């Protein structure tokens, strides 16, 4: 079972709130601007991410999604 953490970089307004609340200091603001002119957040240290959803809870723009991958062996359900 693995988790996917996605930040929609064109939805993100680079407010920095997620960066300030991440308990594992995973997030940073990128230095590449997005289509709206903001510097979006990204996982600078994804290996430290524990998928606690604190960033999702803090984000005013619902830019962060965490989903679960179902493993291949579990997909063959009779």
């Amino acid at each position, binding site marked *: 079972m693995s988790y996917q953490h996605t930040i929609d970089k064109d939805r993100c307004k*680079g*407010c920095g*709130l997620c960066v300030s609340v991440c308990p594992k200091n995973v997030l940073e603001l990128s230095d590449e601007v997005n289509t709206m002119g903001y510097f979006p957040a990204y996982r600078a240290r994804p290996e430290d991410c*524990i998928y606690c959803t604190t960033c999702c809870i803090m984000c*005013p723009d*619902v830019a*962060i*999604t965490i989903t*679960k991958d179902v493993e291949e062996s579990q997909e063959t359900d009779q």
Partner: protein
Amino acid sequence: MAKTYQKPEALSDQPTHYCPGCTHGIIHRLVAEVIDELGIRGQAVGIAPVGCAVLAYNYFTFDFQEAAHGRAPAMATGIKRVRPDLIVFTYQGDGDLASIGMGEIIHAANRGEKFTTIFVNNTVYGMTGGQMAPTTLPGQRTTTSPGGRNVQDVGMPIKIAELLSALQTPAYITRQTVLKPKYIVRAKKAVKKAFQYQMDGRCFSLVEFVSTCPTNWGKTPVEAIQWAEENMLPYYPLGEFKLPD
């Protein structure tokens, strides 16, 4: 420990027009999550204010009406009286609720109209560029109080949760905030409790949110959170001020 998170169905896909770090986005999301979890999207009618959230209806995927400034509680009264089965909420800011709409909110609360009000208190009039509000703190500089709010001249800020709690009619009145994740989790429970009271046909409910306005406060989103924690929470304490029982 690990969890999933996705955008609630009651929230639309449209990116908001709100400023970076604006707490409206968090509050909208909480309301949408609660509506999804309670399964009431098909009976919900939201009422948008005049203020930054005037376009709130673009961000939700259920019936919405747009109110004139301050009049949302009167509109909610009209809807709830003729269709008591609909779940109705107003979403209002400082100017809308505490200034021009003061008469409407007090009377709706006093009549015990069974709708829910989400009140976003960020001490300024955001949409029109940061003017003083009834909730502006003493000494706080705004575009119409450039020397800071002079309480000798215009009085002290109004504490809406306390004011409405003084009414004799049963109601659920609480003040929450979304400044940090721990507060957000608590606030969501309060919003759910408020809507549950409405679903039970019990009473009027109001959730006041201590909120930020980074742009008009001249601060970054993170600085604004800090300023609100240090300056707003002492004057606007969190908690449940009134329960209907």
